[in-house]
C-alpha cells in the first residue's frame, strides 16, 4: 500500500530524475553554444612570436682562402683580396679587420677606414676606433652608463666562407665574443652578426652588451667634397658636405620605426619625425651606397656624424641595439634610466648596395630599396585604377555627465550617404571612405568591445544601407578600428595579464586605459570580431597605429620583441584582409607596405634638424606604386596651398577628415583635436583637389624614377612613363625655356614635352 512516505520517496525520485534531465539538457545546450561560437570565430595563426624578416642563411665555410688575381692599384698592401663578385671585390686587412670594397664597374674604392687617417690629427683612442669596423658598447654592473670596448684589446680570428670571411672578435678584458660575416653577393656587401655567436661572459665580468656600431666610417668624407648623406628622417633629409656649419661636433642617432618604448609622459606639442624605413645612404661624387638593414631593423638606430673640431669626417652608420634603457620611476621623483637585464635577441644584418652613374643619387638609393621590397619582402604593385582621394568621417564621441552618456553626433550614416551622392554629382568618384567613431559610444567607446554599431547614428541598418549604396558605385568603405587600446569601460580584459608591459615590467597605460598585447588582441578579439564585422558588408578596416608603432612587450604570456609586435599586427591585418578584402593603416613604417592597401598619415616632411640641409621624398620614391598613401588630413593643416603642392610633389592622395556638423560641437570633448571639419566649408577644396588629382590619375600606380630641384623652391618629379610634375612653391612664376609654372602652382607634362 502506498503511504505518504512512499509518495514522498517517489516524488523525490521523480524530482531527481527531472533535475538530472534538466542538467543534462543544459549541458548539451552549453556544448552546442560554445561550439557555435567556435564556428563563428576564426582560426588564429599558430605562431605566437611571428617575424617580419625571413630566416637568415649563413654562407658555408671554405677550406682555404680563394686565390684572386685582380687587384686595384690604389689599394694599399696591408689589404688582401679575399672575395670577388661580378661587380665587386672585397679586401681585408687582417690586423684590424678593416675592409675595402672595390666597385669594379667604375673603379671606385669604398674604405671602412678613411684612407687619409694617418694624416689627420686625432687622438690615439679615436684613431684606433675608426680603424675598426665594429665598435662595441657595453655597460657594467650598475647598468647606468654605456662604455666603449677598447679596440686595442680585440682578438680576431678569421675563417674564410663562401663569398667572404667570418671574423670572430674576442674582447678578453670586457668579456664579449661575437662573429661578424662580411660577405660579397652580386652587387652588395652583406654584414651579418648571427644571434647564436654573440656571447657575453656577464657571470664573470658583470658586463652586459648594449650595442654594436657597424662600419661607422664607411665612405666617411671631409667637408668640401662633392656629395651628401641621405638620412631617412621623416620623408627623408640630405646633409651636403659643402654647406657651412658650426664647428662643434654634431651627431644624432635615431631609432628605426619610431618609438622604441611607449612614453606617456610626453609634454606634447613637440615636433619630431620618425624613421619609417631601414634605409640610409651616402653619395660621393658619381658613386653611392644604399644601406638596407635587412635583419634586426627593429632593434637598430641610424646615426649621422658631422665633420667638426675633433673628427673631420662626415659619416653615417647603423647601430645594432642589444639592450635598451628603461625608465624605472619608483620614488615619484626623477626616473632612473637603467639598461634592461635581458638581451634583445635576433640576428643582425645590413647590406650595402653600391650604386654607379645615374643611380648614385637619393633617387637611386630609394629605388634600390623599392626593388628590395618587391623582390624580397613581398610588396606588389597597386592597380592603375586606385582611388584618387581618401575621405574620412568622424561620426560621434560620447561625453559623460553625471547622469547620462550623451553622444555628440557629428555625422550619421544617412549624412554620409547624402555627402557621397553630392560629391558624385560634382564628379568626385574614385574615393575611399572611412568611418571613425561608428561603434557604440562613438570615438571613445568601449574598446576592446567594438560592436554593436551605434544606434543613434543609424544602427546596423543604416550602415548596411550605406555600404550597399557605396558598393553600387564601386566605392570602398572602411571602418576605423583600434586593436591596441583597452579603455576603462572595456570588458574582457585583465590589465595585468593582457596589457602590454614596458621594459620596467609594468603595464603600459594610464588612468584605466591600457595597451593590449598584440597576440591577445589577435587571439581574443580579432578572431571573435572580424567575422562579425564581415557581416556588416564593409570593404575593409582602417587600423589605427598599425604602421606607426612597434614596441617591445615583456608580457608574461606572450612576450614580444619589436619585430614580433609588428608581425603580430601584420598577422591581424592579414586576417582582416582575407575576411573583408582590404586593409588601410595609420602610419608609414615600410614593413607594413606589403600588408596594407593604403597608408594614411604618412610623413611628408622631415624634422628639419639643424644638421641637415634639405628635405627630400626618399620614402615616397621608394613606395610610390607599391602602396597608396596620403598625408595628414588637409583640414587639420591650415597652411593652405603649400601643403597641397607638397602632396602633389610627393605623390600622396588628398586626405580629409570631415563632419556634417560644425566641429565646434567637439570642443568640450576628448576630440577637441578636430578643430575644423565641416563638410560644407571644405567641399570646394575637396572638389578642387580631386580635380587636380585627375590630371595625375594615370601615374597613380607608377614608380617615381627621378626627383630633382630645378631652382629654389621648384621641384620636379618624374614617373615611369615619362610624365613630369613640376611644382613651384615660390610666389612668382617660374620659367625655364618653354616651361612656365605659375606661382604656387604645378604643371603636369606628358612624356616627351
Amino acid at each position, binding site marked *: 500500500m502506498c503511504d505518504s512516505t512512499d509518495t514522498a520517496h517517489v516524488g523525490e525520485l521523480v524530482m531527481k530524475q527531472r533535475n538530472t534531465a534538466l542538467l543534462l539538457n543544459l549541458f548539451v545546450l552549453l556544448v552546442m553554444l560554445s561550439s557555435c561560437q567556435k564556428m563563428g570565430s576564426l582560426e588564429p595563426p599558430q605562431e605566437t612570436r611571428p617575424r617580419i624578416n625571413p630566416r637568415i642563411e649563413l654562407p658555408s665555410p671554405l677550406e682555404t682562402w680563394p686565390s684572386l688575381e685582380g687587384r686595384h692599384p690604389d689599394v694599399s698592401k696591408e689589404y688582401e683580396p679575399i672575395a670577388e663578385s661580378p661587380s665587386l671585390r672585397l679586401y681585408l686587412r687582417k690586423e684590424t679587420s678593416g675592409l675595402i670594397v672595390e666597385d669594379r664597374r667604375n673603379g671606385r674604392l669604398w674604405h671602412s677606414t678613411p684612407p687619409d687617417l694617418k694624416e689627420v690629427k686625432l687622438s690615439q683612442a679615436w684613431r684606433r676606433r675608426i680603424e675598426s669596423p665594429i665598435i662595441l658598447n657595453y655597460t657594467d654592473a650598475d647598468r647606468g652608463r654605456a662604455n666603449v670596448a677598447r679596440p686595442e684589446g680585440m682578438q680576431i680570428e678569421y675563417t674564410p666562407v663562401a663569398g667572404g670571411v667570418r671574423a670572430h672578435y674576442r674582447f678578453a678584458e670586457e668579456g664579449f665574443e661575437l662573429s661578424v660575416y662580411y660577405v660579397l653577393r652580386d652587387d652588395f656587401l652583406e654584414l651579418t652578426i648571427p644571434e647564436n655567436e654573440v656571447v657575453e661572459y656577464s657571470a664573470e665580468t658583470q658586463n652586459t652588451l648594449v650595442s654594436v656600431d657597424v662600419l661607422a666610417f664607411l665612405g666617411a668624407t671631409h667637408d668640401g667634397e662633392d656629395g651628401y648623406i641621405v638620412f631617412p628622417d621623416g620623408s627623408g633629409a640630405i646633409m651636403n658636405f659643402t*654647406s*657651412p656649419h*658650426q664647428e662643434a661636433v*654634431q651627431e644624432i642617432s635615431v631609432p628605426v620605426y619610431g618609438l622604441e618604448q611607449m612614453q606617456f*609622459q*610626453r609634454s*606634447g*606639442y*613637440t*615636433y*619630431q619625425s*620618425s624613421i619609417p624605413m631601414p634605409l640610409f645612404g651616402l653619395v660621393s661624387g658619381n658613386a653611392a651606397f644604399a644601406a638596407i638593414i635587412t635583419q634586426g631593423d627593429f632593434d637598430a638606430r641610424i646615426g649621422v656624424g658631422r665633420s667638426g673640431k675633433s673628427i673631420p669626417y662626415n659619416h653615417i652608420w647603423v647601430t645594432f641595439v642589444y639592450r635598451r634603457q628603461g625608465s*624605472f620611476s*619608483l*620614488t*615619484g621623483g626623477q626616473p632612473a634610466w637603467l639598461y634592461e*637585464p635581458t638581451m634583445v635577441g635576433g640576428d643582425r644584418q645590413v647590406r650595402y648596395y653600391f650604386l654607379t652613374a645615374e643611380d648614385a643619387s637619393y633617387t637611386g638609393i630609394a629605388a634600390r630599396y623599392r626593388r628590395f621590397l618587391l623582390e624580397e619582402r613581398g610588396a606588389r604593385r597597386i592597380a592603375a585604377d586606385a582611388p584618387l582621394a581618401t575621405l574620412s568621417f568622424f561620426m560621434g564621441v560620447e*561625453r*559623460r*555627465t*553625471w*547622469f547620462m552618456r550623451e553622444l555628440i553626433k557629428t555625422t550619421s550614416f544617412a549624412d554620409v550617404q547624402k555627402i557621397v551622392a553630392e560629391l558624385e554629382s560634382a564628379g568626385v568618384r574614385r574615393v575611399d571612405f572611412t568611418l571613425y567613431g561608428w561603434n557604440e559610444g562613438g570615438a*571613445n567607446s568601449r574598446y576592446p568591445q567594438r560592436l554593436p554599431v551605434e544606434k543613434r547614428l543609424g544602427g546596423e541598418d543604416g550602415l548596411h544601407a550605406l555600404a550597399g549604396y557605396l558598393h553600387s558605385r564601386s566605392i570602398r568603405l572602411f571602418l576605423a578600428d583600434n586593436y591596441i*587600446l583597452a579603455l576603462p569601460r572595456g570588458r574582457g580584459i585583465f590589465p595585468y595579464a593582457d596589457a602590454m608591459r614596458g621594459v*620596467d*615590467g*609594468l603595464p603600459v597605460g594610464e*588612468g584605466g*586605459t591600457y595597451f593590449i598585447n598584440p597576440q591577445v588582441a589577435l587571439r581574443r578579439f580579432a578572431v571573435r570580431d572580424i567575422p562579425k564585422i564581415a557581416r556588416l558588408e564593409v570593404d575593409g578596416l582602417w587600423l589605427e597605429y598599425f604602421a606607426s608603432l612597434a614596441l617591445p612587450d615583456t608580457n608574461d604570456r606572450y612576450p614580444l620583441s619589436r619585430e614580433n609586435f609588428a608581425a603580430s599586427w601584420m598577422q591581424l591585418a592579414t586576417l582582416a584582409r582575407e575576411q573583408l578584402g582590404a586593409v588601410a593603416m595609420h602610419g608609414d613604417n615600410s614593413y607594413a607596405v606589403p600588408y596594407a592597401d593604403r597608408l594614411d*598619415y604618412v610623413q*611628408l*616632411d*622631415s624634422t*628639419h*634638424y*639643424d644638421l641637415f*640641409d*634639405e*628635405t627630400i621624398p626618399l620614402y615616397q620614391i621608394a613606395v610610390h606604386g607599391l602602396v597608396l598613401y596620403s598625408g*595628414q588630413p588637409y583640414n587639420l*593643416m*591650415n*597652411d593652405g596651398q*603649400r601643403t597641397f*603642392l607638397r602632396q602633389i610633389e610627393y605623390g600622396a592622395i588628398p586626405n580629409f577628415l570631415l563632419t556634417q556638423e*560644425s566641429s*565646434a560641437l*567637439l*570642443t*568640450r*570633448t*576628448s*576630440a*577637441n583635436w578636430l*578643430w*575644423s571639419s*565641416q563638410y560644407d*566649408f571644405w567641399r570646394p577644396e575637396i572638389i578642387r583637389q580631386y580635380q587636380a588629382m585627375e590630371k595625375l590619375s594615370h601615374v597613380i600606380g607608377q614608380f617615381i624614377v627621378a626627383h630633382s630641384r630645378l631652382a629654389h623652391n621648384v621641384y620636379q618629379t618624374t614617373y615611369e612613363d615619362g610624365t613630369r610634375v613640376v611644382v613651384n*612653391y615660390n*610666389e612668382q612664376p617660374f620659367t625655364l625655356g618653354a616651361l612656365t609654372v605659375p606661382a604656387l602652382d604645378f604643371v603636369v607634362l606628358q612624356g616627351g614635352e
Partner: protein
Amino acid sequence: MTRVFSHYKRFAVCALVLGFLLGEVIPALADGPLIPGYTIRDGQRVPAPAGYILSGEIAGEGQPCGPFKNPQDLFLDPATGNLLVADTGNNRIVVLDSKGQYLFEIGQEAGLKGPQGVYVDVDGNIWVADTENERVVEFTPEGALKAEYHKPVSDLLDEYGFRPTKIVLDKRGFIYTVVGSEGNLGIMVMDTNERFRGFFGRTKVKFNLGRVLARFFASKAQRRRMLRVRPAPMGNIHIDDLGFIYAVSPVLTRDQIQRLNSVGENVYGEIGLRTGAGRLWDKLKGKEGLLFGEEEIKWRWDGTREISVPYTMGSMFVDVAVDDLGIVSALDQQRNRIYQYDQAGNLLVIFGGEGLREGAFSLPVSIVAGKSEYLYILDAGRGNIQVFRPTRITRLIHEASHRYFNGEYDEAVKLWEEISHHNTNFALAHSGLGKALMRQERFLEAMREYRYAEDKGGYSAAFREYRYVWLRHHFNWLGLGALTLLVGSAAAMHRLGDGLRWLLRRLRELRERSDLRAVPVLLFLALLVRMLGLSLLSFHFQTQRPEEIKLLFEAGKVLIPWVTWCISAVAVAEIFYGEGTFRNIVISSAWDLWPYIVLTLPLSLMTNAITLDEKVFYQAGGYLMWGLLIWQFFNQVRTLHNFSTGRAIAVMVLTLIGMLIIWVLLGLVYALTSEVVRFIQQVALEIYVRQY
C-alpha cells in the same frame, strides 16, 4: 590617446597679402616645419592650427663679421629695415640689412664692452647700452662715435649703480634705460644732459596674505632673515609710435606684459579681462592682474578626466615686440615660445618650441616685429636670428582684430566667421562673432556663439536682448496665460489652500512620528535636488561645465557637512546637558533640510529666466534659503535640547566650531593614511621591480 602630431612645413601666403621675401644668406633654406600649435582655453592647452612658420635664418657665420657670441639684443630700424644685433660677447654692434646681409659693425674704436642693448632713434642715430662700461653711447647712422652719457648725478641715485642693459628713447629725446644692479630699479629716465628724470613704471609689490601672516608670526631674528621683497626687475622694453612703452618682467607671475603710458601707469588690457580684479581671494594670494603666458602645468584635462603631466615651469618673459597693427608678441625664455596678444590682451597665437631644429629655440633673448607681420627672434644659444612668417589664419586673426579695434565691425564679422570655420576651438573668434552679431541684432545666434566661446558675460548680455524680444513677441500669449493663471488660482485658491494645508499636516505628522526611515529618503531628496539643481542652471550661471560635475564630489558636499553636524551637535549638546538624543538629532537634521530641498530647484530654474545683471535676485533667493536653514537648525538646537535662546546660540556656534575641528582632523587623518598607503604601494613596486 596620445596622438603623435607631425606636420608639414610648406605654407601658402594669401595671394592678397604680399610676403616679405628674404634673400638667401644661408644657402637654400626652404620653409621650415609647421610645428603643431595649441592655444589656451580656461588654463588648459587645446589643439589649434599652428601660427607661424619659419621663413629663413640669419647668422653671422659665412659673413664678414663672423659668428655672433652670446648676443643679447636685436633691434629693427623701421625707417631702413636694418637689423642691429648687440653682439655682447664680441663687444660690438653688428648692423645687417633687411635681408640679413652684413653692412658694418660698431664697437672696436669706441671700446664697447659687453653691450646688451641697442636702439635707433627717429634720426637714425644708433644708441648703445654699453653695459660693462656703465654708459650709454650714441653713434651716427654710419657708426661714428657721437656722444656718451654716464650715470646722472643726483642724490637720489647715490646707493644705486648704473649698468644699462636695454635702452629706448622717446620723442622728446629722453633716454629710458633698464638698469641692472644690486638695487634693481626698473626703468631709469635721463635726458641728454645727463640729468636724472626719474624712475618709470615701477612694478608694485603685491599684497600676499601668506607673507603677511608669516611676518606676523615670525620672531624678530627670523624677520631679519626673511628676504626683502623688492619690486620685480624689468626685462626688455619697446616703444611704439604713440609713445607707449611696452615692458616685460621675467619675474612677475601676473601682469608680466605692461603697456606704460606717459606717467608710467600700466594700461594694458581691458579691466573686464583682468582675472581677480576685485576678487578678494586672488588679491590675498597675490594673483591679481592679467595672466600672460602659462602657469605651471601639473595636470591637464583630456575632455573626460584629469591626467597628470610632468611638471612644467611657468612662463618667463624676456622681451616684447609690437607691430603696426598693435599686436603684442612676447618672448618666453623658459618655455622657448612666443605668446601673441591683441590690443586688449586676448591671447591670439602661441608658437615656438625647444630644440636644435629649424623653428625651435635654444636660448631666445630678443624679438622684433618687421614688415608684413614678420617676426625676428634672436637666439643666443644658436647664435642666429630666425625669421617667422604668419600662416594664413594668423593673418586673418590679426586683420580681424585690427578692424574690430578700429570700429569696422561688419568687416570684422566676415573675418571672424571665416576664422571660426578654420578653428572652432578659437574662443576669441566666437566671442568676436558674438559681439558683431549682437550689433546686428541677431541675438539667438549671438547666444550660440558666446556659448561656443564660453563667454558668460557676453551670453548674458545677448540673452537679455533676446529675452526682451521674445517677451514682446509672445506678449499676447503670455498675458493670456498669466491672466488665466491668476483667475484660475483665485478661483481655486480655496482648493489650493486646502490642498496645501493637507500636505503640510501630513508632513508634520510624518515628522512627529520620528521615523528613522525618513532620514535616507530626505538625504536622497537633498542629493537629488542638488544634482538636478546643478544640471538645470542656465549657462551663464554655471560655475562648472556639466561634464565636470562629479556625483561623488557633490554628494560629499551635501553629506559631509550634514554628518559632521550631527556628530558635532550631539557632542556639544551632551556637554551642555541637552535633552536630545542622537536619534532625535539625526531625524530632526534630516527634516531641517527642507528649505534646501524645496528652494534649490526653483532657484535653478529661475536662472534660466534672468541675466547676470539680475543676479541679485538669485543671490537673494540663496540668502533666503540659507537663512531658513540656519533658522531651522537653530530651532532644532533650542527645542530638542530645551535650551534657552542664548544658550542655543552658543551651542550652535560651538557646534559649528566642532564641525571645523572634525574636518581638520579628518583632513589630517586622510593625509597621513594616504601617505602610508603611498609608501606601502611604492615599497611593493620596488620589491616587484627589484626582483625582476
